[in-house]
């Protein structure tokens, strides 16, 4: 009977119930949509960030962070890489050697960061000089493996840098560095193997990559690297725990999760996530106010009915249950529709993606990372379940006081004519 009463009372004022339901449906489905796109965006930002010369975890000399000098390099990188793999088989370690350098071609010269990389492995994990990013020529790995005879080792440079240096594929450029010995400047010529475009000004203008052995020789640091970047197939969610576990195993090394290694990226993700939480809060308030308004209006108009039920012998809890059930039915119905609509939207954007370039007309950059043209929605089941549960509990909470008050109406009011 109380279920019947609750349902029929909701249908009694169809317009009011429908309006409240529509508000909840709209707010909740939008929240799911934005939650998916936001999480998807964060995932894309992190994935791209760690692939732009970073890594899920960075292993380096304990003093390298404060003073990235050639005196603070890691020795025996191959041995260390094997030790790291032994601790977690899901890790892909990539050795890198970095230094400031002057790159020259003809009368042009640019100061930049030169990165010595392992071309074969780097091509699998990095987005700077992988096949997609190369707009002219080839990757370092392809250049090294090509059957053509090359006089010089290859170098890949950014598109803007190539323009500034006025070089093309096959041209020779000179790299000048200060070796670790502190002696005279060391120079070496390289052949432009490929030109990449990441869309990030810093990388496209001031970044170049050469095979690590060439840079080691040039810098006079054989068998030494600036860092070992670790990529994990477990994804970016549990990186902090991974870094902590590795720190325990390798206490003499500086082991940084990407959040510490790239604080600007982490700040951008955190700030965006805070915006999402604010949106969720607004949705929760909208749902709470919507339900509360409906319940208050409904109970205010039915005070005599509650008195009558109590006069006829209904216990206070029975009357309160009717009011609570009304809110629960309204909330459950609206949340189900909102969830269905939100998941439908999520499915669309998870498969088709949201084309940001189409929407905003230009690619967007955040936290030092060029966001992808398309975002794909990602939803975490736990987060979604918690949101549904929270809204449901919120419904009960905001209804509790009007429900209790309805149950404590005086039965005398039932005998009064109006």
């Amino acid at each position: 009977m109380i279920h019947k009463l609750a349902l029929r009372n909701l249908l009694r004022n169809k317009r009011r119930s429908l309006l409240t339901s529509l508000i909840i449906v709209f707010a909740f489905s939008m929240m799911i949509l934005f939650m998916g796109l936001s999480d998807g965006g964060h995932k894309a930002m992190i994935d791209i960030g760690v692939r732009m010369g970073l890594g899920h975890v960075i292993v380096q000399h304990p003093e390298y962070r404060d003073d990235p000098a050639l005196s603070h390099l890691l020795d025996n990188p191959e041995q260390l890489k094997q030790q790291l793999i032994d601790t977690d088989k899901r890790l892909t370690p990539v050795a890198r050697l970095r230094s400031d350098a002057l790159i020259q071609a003809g009368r042009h010269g640019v100061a930049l960061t030169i990165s010595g990389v392992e071309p074969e492995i780097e091509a699998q994990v990095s987005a700077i000089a992988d096949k997609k990013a190369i707009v002219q020529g080839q990757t370092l790995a392809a250049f090294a493996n090509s059957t053509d005879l090359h006089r010089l080792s290859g170098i890949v440079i950014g598109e803007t840098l190539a323009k500034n240096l006025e070089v093309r594929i096959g041209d020779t450029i000179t790299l000048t560095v200060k070796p670790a010995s502190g002696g005279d400047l060391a120079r070496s010529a390289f052949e432009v193997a490929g030109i990449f475009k990441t869309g990030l000004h810093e990388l496209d203008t001031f970044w170049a990559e050469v095979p690590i052995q060439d840079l080691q020789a040039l810098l006079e640091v054989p068998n030494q690297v600036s860092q070992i970047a670790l990529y994990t197939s477990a994804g970016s969610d549990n990186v902090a725990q991974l870094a902590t576990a590795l720190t325990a195993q390798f206490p003499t090394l500086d082991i940084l999760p990407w959040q510490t290694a790239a604080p600007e990226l982490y700040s951008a993700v955190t700030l965006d996530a805070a915006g999402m939480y604010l949106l969720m809060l607004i949705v929760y308030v909208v749902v709470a106010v919507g339900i509360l308004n409906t319940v208050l209006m409904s109970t205010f108009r039915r005070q005599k009915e509650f008195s009558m039920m109590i006069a006829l012998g209904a216990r206070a809890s029975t009357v309160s249950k009717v009011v609570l059930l009304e809110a629960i039915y309204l909330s459950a119905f609206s949340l189900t529709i909102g969830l269905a609509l939100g998941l439908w939207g999520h499915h669309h954007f998870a498969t088709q993606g949201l084309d940001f370039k189409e929407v905003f007309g230009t690619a967007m950059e955040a936290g030092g990372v060029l966001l992808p043209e398309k975002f794909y929605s990602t939803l975490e089941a736990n987060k979604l379940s918690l949101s549904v549960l929270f809204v449901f509990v919120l419904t009960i909470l905001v209804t509790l006081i009007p429900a209790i008050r309805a149950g404590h109406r005086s039965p005398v009011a039932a005998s009064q004519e109006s």
Partner: protein
Amino acid sequence: MIKLNQINKIFSDKHQSFHCLKDLNLEVKQGEFTVIAGPSGSGKSTLLNIIGLLDKPSSGSYEFDGQNVAKLNNNQLADIRREKIGFVFQAYNLMPVLTALENTEMIMEFCNVDKKVRRQRAMETLEAVGLGEFKNRFPAQLSGGQQQRVAVARAIAAQPLLVVADEPTANLDSHSTESLLDLMQSLNQELGVTFLFSSHDPRVIDRAHRVVHLQDGQIVKDVCTNNNDQQVAV
């Protein structure tokens, strides 16, 4: 069944108080068909509210069905109302979202009567009040007289000891009033249900076995009539 002893009821607020019932004593026996009569403001409804356990007296003792009910809490009073007292209100007070049959079943559901039993009993009661064919109609689809009959059906379906009716004919035309009174009188005679009305309607007073006249919160006259012998056909 009902023993009121030295009942007082005082309504008061910050500025004034109103002594509504004054040292009132009343006894009602099982099976009576009693009217509490009196002009407006005499305290009829207040007395009925106290007898029906909707309100508590300011002082005095009240024994209902052998139980002192003066110190019971709200839930205990609700339990007694549900199990032993039926109500018929002036404004019908049916649940607008329930059909005539569901309204009739409502109290029995509160009493946890088995679904089959209560459905059958509600149907029989609706038939008895002449509204069997209107069982699926909502209150808004019934006339005032029909709504009051449903209210009577609701009051008696749970087989209470006492039916309290506060001005039950106030909103009815004369035909509906006569018909309703016939119905209640027959239920009183056939089922032995005690009826206690408040009314200043002479048609109701004429049908009563006993008329308790109330004035300014005091019983001024308590008259037994010879209506006990009257046979009424529904």
